[in-house]
């Protein structure tokens, strides 16, 4: 579980987009999101709970995602997050911006 300050700062600006991408594949609850990020990056990046919930609550507030209670039969109830149409549009826009930025940065460094 390495989280060097430099990489986390660079990644942090894209947390919202990363969350939107994951929710685009299906509804998820909080810990599920951190776990998927952990496994997708082979443990090279750990998304802190605080950072994730800042993103989730911000996205929910602007209407890009919505939340609902799951119906777990055992254990505590979980709040699931689901992407909205507005959220999908935001993801497409952010992804295009990222492709463009990546090209520019690659040319420059």
């Amino acid at each position, binding site marked *: *579980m390495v989280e060097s300050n430099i990489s986390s700062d660079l990644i942090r600006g894209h947390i919202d987009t990363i969350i939107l991408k994951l929710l685009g594949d299906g509804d998820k*609850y*909080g*810990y599920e999101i*951190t776990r998927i990020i952990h496994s997708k990056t082979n443990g090279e990046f*750990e998304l*802190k*709970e*605080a*950072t994730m*919930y*800042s993103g989730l*609550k*911000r996205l929910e*507030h602007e209407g890009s995602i919505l939340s609902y209670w799951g119906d777990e039969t055992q*254990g*505590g*109830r*979980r*709040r699931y997050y689901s992407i909205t149409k507005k959220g999908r549009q935001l993801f497409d826009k952010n992804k295009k911006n990222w492709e463009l930025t990546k090209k520019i940065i690659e040319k420059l460094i």
Partner: protein
Amino acid sequence: MNDRIKQYLDGIFALYDGVKSVNELKADLLSDLQERFCELKADGNDDETAFKITIDSIGDIEQTVQDVANLSRSLERQVLTNFSVSNLPKSDFAGVTAHKGKFEVSTLCGSDFSGADLTGSSFKISGVRDSNFDGTNLTDCTLYMNNLTGASFNQSILVRTEFNMSEITHAKFTDVKLIDVKLIMTDLRKTIFENCTFNGVDFNYCDLRGMSLDGLTFIGVKFDKTALNEVTFKGATLKNVSFIAASTWTSWSKKYYRAIKTICFDGAMMDKLTFASLKGLGADLSKVTVI
């Protein structure tokens, strides 16, 4: 160990206790941390290591809590101005948080406010008859000149709530502690109070004729210039209760003195001051216990 995680979160969230959106964040976080802790244990970590890694996964939560509190405050602000001069019968406001909300000159008959936190809200001249205020926090609310006929107040929080000049007929208050509530100039003859205590409540100019206030507790309550004919306080407890007629010898005060003599205090308990003032007014205190 789950308790230890919960205690840790209680510490972080203590400052924001009561902010609904923050409570939700806390609940989400708790279930995430519990799941992580269980996984770490299943991977063979000992309690202490698993706890440390779990807590470490939270990150800088203070900023997040602050952000979430700010987001919800802006939501509450949006709610504020919306409900004046509205026609919204049978609306669902159950569980909402709307501090200093304005529900003025509105029609909200039969609405559900149960469990809502309406601290500081104003319901001036509105119709909220048959509405449900069960468990509602109405601290510092103004319900001036409302129609509250048939409204339900079961275990509501009533602190400094003003019902002045409202129509409260057939409203039902059960298991409520009324603290510094003002009921000035209300007709309470058909209002139901069950298992209630009245602390610092102002009944000035109320019409309580023929009411049964048996077994209820009144501390620091004012019945000044109240219509009290045939009221019964059987087995009630009265401490520092004030019964004052108008200051001059008017027909109104004569009526007040006559009414005091018709009140039944049988089996009531009262402190010496209340006892003395009622005795001075000629009340029948033969079956009263002084405490």
